[in-house]
């Protein structure tokens, strides 16, 4: 009896260890806001992820890919995001954590990645410091300082001397404000006013009036994309700030493709700096946008879906290199220095910071074939996150 039992156990163990090899699928857990105020983030990122699997195949390094999506709505509640990351690791046994729409989600989940030694691919959250919170974090999206510095140097070069800054009062907003101020004043510009508005705001009327009274050459704006941005743009036009000769400059998440149509013509003439535009001219982007419209005819491809798409590409390439091994240390080692041509242009992972290096473009919002688009006219190539220097 005893021998039977022992051999059964031995058999089970042998089966278990055998089962853990090659045939096992790679499980990727996505923590994303799928409902609530930031549902658009989750939708776009998961669109990008699914599009990659549909167009490039769902076998990475010889292992089938399995995606598990967890809704961390509202997206700003770190405790919820952290619990879901924990659950993905402990219960769903994922090999890789990915997604993370907003900064608090990424900050709160970072210790889970560290403790579980799982790679964590950040597909949106853009506060500079995120990659410093765990050695297992790799970012496929962008950082705010990275997108901000180029517009500041562009402004200084283009006869904009006095700038009023208005940013949302949270990590990315502070990053944007600090970086803009640093780059712009170093280039000889002057900041004539600063406002930090609450993130879940409100009414921009008093701010707009104050800006109008200050008469700057331009307003530098950073708000999380969504209803607030639309409200601000409408107010900017209605109160005649544009007519008073005040330019509006921003990072490109302001006229993001997902909300550009809702902003309407008030977005025309806006100058922004950003790493991705639907109108980017390259064969990779053409193929990407065509595939996107075929899969999601009702949505427009934007930077979030591209970050989801590139995040999956990064995972696919790393697993190819490691032969399907998802061990945290090996994964990160393989990801360092990796470079490829994404729909947004050439990008790479900085071996020193595990953050993304990419070209940042200066664009003007124009109407192309009856559709609002961000048309690129200048660029800063291979730009690292200045927030960490």
């Amino acid at each position, binding site marked *: 009896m005893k021998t039977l039992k022992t051999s059964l156990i031995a058999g089970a163990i042998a089966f278990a260890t055998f089962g853990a090899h090659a045939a096992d699928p790679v499980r990727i857990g996505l923590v994303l806001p799928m409902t609530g105020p930031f549902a658009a983030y989750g939708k776009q990122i998961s669109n990008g992820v699914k599009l990659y699997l549909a167009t490039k195949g769902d076998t990475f390094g010889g292992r089938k890919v399995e995606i598990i999506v967890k809704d961390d709505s509202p997206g700003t509640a*770190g*405790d919820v995001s952290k619990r879901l990351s924990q659950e993905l690791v*402990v*219960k769903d046994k994922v090999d890789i954590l990915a997604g993370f729409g907003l900064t608090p989600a990424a900050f*709160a989940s970072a210790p889970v990645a560290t403790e579980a030694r799982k790679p964590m691919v950040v597909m949106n959250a853009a*506060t500079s410091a995120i990659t410093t919170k765990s050695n297992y974090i790799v970012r496929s999206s962008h950082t705010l300082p990275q997108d901000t510095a180029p517009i500041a140097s562009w402004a200084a070069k283009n006869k904009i001397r006095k700038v009023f800054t208005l940013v949302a009062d949270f990590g990315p907003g502070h990053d944007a404000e600090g970086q803009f101020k640093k780059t712009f004043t170093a280039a000889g510009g002057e900041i004539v006013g600063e406002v930090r508005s609450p993130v879940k705001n409100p009414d921009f009327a008093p701010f707009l009036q104050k800006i109008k009274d200050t008469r700057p050459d331009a307003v530098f704006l950073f708000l999380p994309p969504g209803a607030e941005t639309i409200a601000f743009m409408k107010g900017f036009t209605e109160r005649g700030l544009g007519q008073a000769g005040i330019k509006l400059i921003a990072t490109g998440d302001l006229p993001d493709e997902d909300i550009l149509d809702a902003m309407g013509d008030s977005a025309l003439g806006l100058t922004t700096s950003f790493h991705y535009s639907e109108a980017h001219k390259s064969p990779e982007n053409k193929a990407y946008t065509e595939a996107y419209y075929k899969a999601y005819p009702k949505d427009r491809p934007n930077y979030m879906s591209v970050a989801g798409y590139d995040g999956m590409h990064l995972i696919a390439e790393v697993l190819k290199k490691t032969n399907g091994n998802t061990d945290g240390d090996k994964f990160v080692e393989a990801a360092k220095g990796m470079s490829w041509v994404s729909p947004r242009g050439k990008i790479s992972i900085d071996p020193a910071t595990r953050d993304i290096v990419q070209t940042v473009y200066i664009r003007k919002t124009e109407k192309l074939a009856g559709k609002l688009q961000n048309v690129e006219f200048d660029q800063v190539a291979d730009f690292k996150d200045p927030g960490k220097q």
Partner: protein
Amino acid sequence: MTTTTLAGFDPAPLQRQARWQHAEYAFWLLPAAAYFAFGDQLALLSQIAITALFALSLDLILGYAGIVSLGHAAFFGMGAYTAGLMATHGWNEPLAGLAGAAVIAALAGFVTSFLVLRGSDLTRLMVTLGVALMLFELANKLTSITGGVDGLQGIEMKPILGQFAFDLYGKTAFIYATLVLFVLFWLARRIVHSPFGLGLRGIHLNMARMPALGTPVNARLVGIYTVGAAYAGIAGALLTQTTQFVSIDVLSFPRSAELLLILVLGGTGSLYGALIGTVVFMTAHHLLSGINPQYWQFWLGALLVLVVLFARDGVMGGLRALARRLPGAAK
């Protein structure tokens, strides 16, 4: 029986009510069973225990004293930030954090209770909502202290009593949260069956009459509101300590509103209603959002409507109605 000094007053039914019943002992075996049955879901289970404590705190003031509140998250959030700030400033022994959170939240509860007492139900809704909104915006604005929307980071907790460290699987967190919940539940049960608690129920039933019986109505209400606030503060502190993060969401209106839903779902004024409501709500939330991450709220809404239609007084009310129908049910 010599204690019966009032003619015609028989305290026996009240004493019977205060005694622990078999079903209650069985109920408290459930967390232990859950620990072994769902060992890979402990993070969720500890959040259920924490939310149950939070719901219990609202039940004390709403279910027993009849004070409606749409801003109970104010105390939850205060507790959460207190525990978080204590930890980031080097005072990271968990039990000390709980005590600190309880004191701060109780203080806030005591002070605001005077505002809450001034008026009828509708006014109370507005006042509680207003207090919570003010705190929310304060936390939103004071980013240098609270971290604002980014959340309060860098919280590291010492092992509980220097022995039990928090782990990735959430074992310590679950046992810790459940024990705190049990102790505070036991205390709450004592409170509601004490003369103080009976007085509260009298106030709930007929506020105009209680002064005639010599009950100091306002003092009782201030008392229970303060206790409720302290309970909510402890729940908030538990959340901070088990997740080692405080997001501004702890003070948000949805958290208060969801809590009210949970309590109505479970049934007010029975203590167990708060616990059962939390278990049902959070399990449904978890399962539904797992099945359909995008549109799960539809099904959650449907569940709530069904419960309200077919089980008056929530799940507890439904259970009681069921128990009455069973043949040979004890009275």
